[in-house]
């Protein structure tokens, strides 16, 4: 049985969560079973992802013809080091968020909507995994829409009334993004007549209608940029993160933008090719400028935020700046840094949002004012926040340090030391906004909400701390992350040489 399934792992990767989504609705009367089902699905996905990565590392790229139709006619699932790695991130986060979801969701979402929430979560996972795993450009759009639509739903379930408007904003913007992507893919199809990525990559160099191609690329970049919250297209993000339910925020923040970054990398490096993107077109320069702007702006805005979740959201904008910076550098080292930060930032933000979720679980607020003095009431939740915060700052022995290290090395390698200074400067700004919270939460005299709070339940703490410990683990044991990130970077950068 298993050996049979083993050949269909790429398909199962998507199918397992996909199937579990409707099951959630079917089993809606037994919320506990729904949760267990999702838990099982996400853990299965993780197992599959690990197995796939293992196969890729040992056997090279896997090509899987969906439904038996060979590429370029059928839809091809194509797995190399890059997306195997991203899949691992997404499923890994999902597997940690899912146990967390149980109590958090029960508290934050009306009981009748819980199964729906899980269904949407599963769909979202499906979409993200599909986007990552597929080797077909149009398929990317399809899965993107699946994930986006489910995300709108997830966000709108937030208790805050602003969640609805946020979801609506995101809906509009996401749709524009999706449309742009579709338009971009359309342009590519026009000039090549194919939608299979590998095929596209082969045919593009022969393309003569460069204008069309360039315009298509512009649409693609802007479209994907919207999804990954590239500055100044990040405007939907803070509210969406801030008002979504804790579980949703943790999951989306740790995964959605990462997958979007993956899509960007895939289109830039594999489909369009770095020669066109970086040499014919100034993609690298634009990416660097936007990265720097995002880095600086995001950090400064985060410093002044009064809402912790919004603060972390703006911090995400800044962190995406780091990732984009590595891509903009267009060297193996830079890409390694970006890939690393993809992984590490997922760990960091996941842990931070989950820790904030723990605080929210007891205080029903994420306003700094209400969190005054909470540190002494909920030491474990708050401890998680502090350690994850240190990782965000980039303190050694945490995951954040590793990615910063590579990013600075990459900047120095190309002789752009101002960028190196900027990266470290970003860390300093991170100290400010993280420590602002620490000080208020630790030293402030407890607010009325904090005074009544007790430590969060283990059901929330354990998953949170798993991510926190992962931050420490991957900060000290970098063999896996750096190795795979480097491999992925080299895979992507083949065209660079």
């Amino acid at each position, binding site marked *: 049985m298993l050996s049979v399934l083993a050949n269909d792992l790429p398909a199962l990767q998507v199918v397992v969560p996909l199937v579990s989504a409707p099951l959630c609705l079917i089993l809606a009367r037994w919320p506990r079973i729904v949760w267990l089902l999702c838990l099982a699905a996400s853990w299965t996905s993780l197992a599959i992802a690990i197995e796939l990565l293992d196969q890729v590392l040992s056997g090279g790229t896997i090509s899987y013809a969906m439904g038996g139709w060979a590429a370029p006619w059928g839809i091809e699932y194509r797995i190399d080091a890059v997306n195997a790695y991203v899949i691992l991130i997404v499923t890994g986060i999902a597997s940690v968020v899912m146990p967390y979801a149980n109590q958090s969701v029960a508290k934050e979402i009306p009981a009748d909507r819980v199964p729906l929430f899980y269904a949407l979560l599963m769909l979202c996972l499906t979409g993200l995994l599909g986007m990552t795993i597929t080797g077909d450009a149009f398929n990317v759009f399809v899965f993107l829409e699946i994930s986006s639509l489910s995300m709108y739903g997830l966000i709108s379930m937030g208790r805050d009334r602003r969640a609805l408007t946020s979801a609506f904003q995101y809906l509009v913007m996401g749709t524009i993004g999706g449309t742009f992507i579709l338009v971009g893919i359309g342009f590519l199809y026009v000039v090549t007549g194919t939608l299979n990525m590998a095929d596209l990559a082969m045919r593009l160099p022969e393309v003569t209608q460069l204008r069309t191609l360039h315009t298509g690329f512009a649409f693609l970049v802007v479209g994907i940029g919207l999804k990954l919250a590239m500055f100044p297209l990040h405007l939907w993000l803070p509210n969406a993160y801030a008002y979504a339910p804790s579980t949703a925020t943790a999951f989306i923040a740790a995964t959605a933008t990462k997958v979007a970054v993956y899509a960007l990398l895939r289109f830039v490096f594999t489909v369009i090719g770095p020669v066109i993107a970086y040499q014919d077109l100034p993609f690298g320069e634009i990416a660097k400028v936007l990265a720097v702007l995002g880095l600086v702006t995001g950090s400064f805005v985060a410093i002044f935020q009064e809402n912790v979740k919004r603060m972390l959201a703006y911090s995400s904008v800044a962190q995406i700046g780091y990732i984009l910076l590595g891509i903009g550098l267009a060297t193996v080292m830079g890409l390694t840094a970006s890939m690393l930060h993809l992984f590490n930032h997922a760990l960091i933000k996941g842990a931070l949002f989950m820790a904030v979720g723990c605080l929210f679980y007891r205080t029903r607020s994420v306003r700094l004012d209400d969190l005054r003095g909470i540190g002494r009431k909920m030491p474990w939740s708050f401890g998680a926040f502090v350690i994850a915060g240190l990782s965000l*700052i980039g303190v*050694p022995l945490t995951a954040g340090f590793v990615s910063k290290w590579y990013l600075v090395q990459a900047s120095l390698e190309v002789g752009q030391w101002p960028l190196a200074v900027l990266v*470290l400067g970003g860390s*300093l700004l991170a100290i400010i906004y993280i420590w602002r919270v620490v000080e208020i939460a630790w030293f402030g005299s407890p607010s009325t909400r904090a005074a009544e709070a007790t430590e969060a339940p283990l059901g929330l703490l354990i998953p949170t701390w798993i991510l926190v410990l992962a931050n420490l683990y991957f900060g000290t044991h970098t063999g896996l992350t750096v190795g795979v990130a480097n491999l992925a970077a080299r895979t992507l950068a083949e065209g660079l040489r």
Partner: protein
Amino acid sequence: MSPASAMQLAVALPVAASVPIVLTGRSPNLRELVTLVTAAVVLGLVGSTVPDVLAGERPELTLLQLLPGLSLTFRLEPLGMIFALVASFLWLVTSIYSIGYMRGHHEQNQTRFYACFALAIASALGVAFAGNMLTLFVAYELLSLSTYPLVTHAGTDEAKRAGRLYLGILMGTSIGFMLLAVMWTWHITGSLDFREGGLLAGQIEGPAAAALLALYVFGIGKAAVMPFHRWLPAAMVAPTPVSALLHAVAVVKSGVFAILKICVYLFGLDFLTSTGASDWLLYFAGATILIGSLIAMRQDNLKARLAYSTISQLSYIVAGALLASSLATTGAAMHIAMHAFGKITLFFCAGAILVAAHKTEISQMDGLGRVMPLTFSAFFIGSLSIIGLPPTGGTWSKFYLALGSLEAGQMWILVTLMISSVLNIAYLLPIPIRAFFAVSADSESQAIKEAPLPCLIAIGASTAGCLYLFFDPSVVYELARRIAGGG
């Protein structure tokens, strides 16, 4: 036990001990017993490695591979040996002192205090044992973080502000400058190992070397070279044992220790001399020595005065490192030990005065010497050591630093050191002398008694250390001599 495993255990033990310290928090006696036993064992472990290091062994231990080609490594060499010895010995002494102080002063959160203290010492030992720049950096940052709760111990607004400044400057400089320098070094050489003769020697141009060295010197905020010194006086809001051990020994010394290590093992003394990369930085160190003393004179708060004195004294060591001569290095390394003993004595006394007489301002201490003769005698001897007068250990380190400045041809550093000695007298000695000889303004001082016994024991031990190091500086000297390749 092999030196390598002794080293590992010496770091691991205080970390491990923080758990039973927290668990036994309900029973202060038990908690403090754990602290004392741990401190004694750690001292034993560190001490046991001295003969090996003197015999030329350099025990090495790789803890884990952090990045490809870059690991967390411990490597024990003479300089680290000095620092580790001083830190572990004074931890034991301070632990005894803390018992008297914390109880006598009825401090809150004592369990947190002892636990963080253990972690801080582990980090300091990590700094001492660091076998490469990354390990040093990691331990350095951990030290900043583990001492933050100690600095903000009181939890008042002032403590909060101090903590902000403390962490802001230390983390800010270390991430903004030092980390950049570390990465730059790695970029140039592909390694961060401390290497005899200097890792960077010959691999970097003169002006770039000067810039890199500046990043290191200013990046190491713990060395308190002006203008990055403000955190130190601010951190004086911490309870006195913290000020004593951390801001006379562990924290500040790990800063100057790091600068010494960088000068000796990253740049190499010969390389520094030949490029002149450190010359202009010497002016900062020299200015810090003098300005620190001048500001100290104007402080009426005893701990603030000691803090500025520390700033000034730290730059002795920084200057010793930057002079880049083997004699100056010897002097600088010796000064780590000598200043530690002297300054910790002074802080102990400051704490004893606070506990026994509830006085913090120097102007209120007239006549106190008659009711607290032991404390003020110790203060006097500690002051002599800071000034560098016989019969205290400070004499020797000042001697070698001065000799080193001649060897390096920087006569003005010699002059600076000499002027500073005189300034030291002007701001340190009036305290015990007025306490002994001036007439007290208020009459209530008759009711004051000496500080609690544990405090006095600790004060006695550190004072004895100051004196002992004058008559037998051989261990410190022999170790210090070996740093710059003296055998």
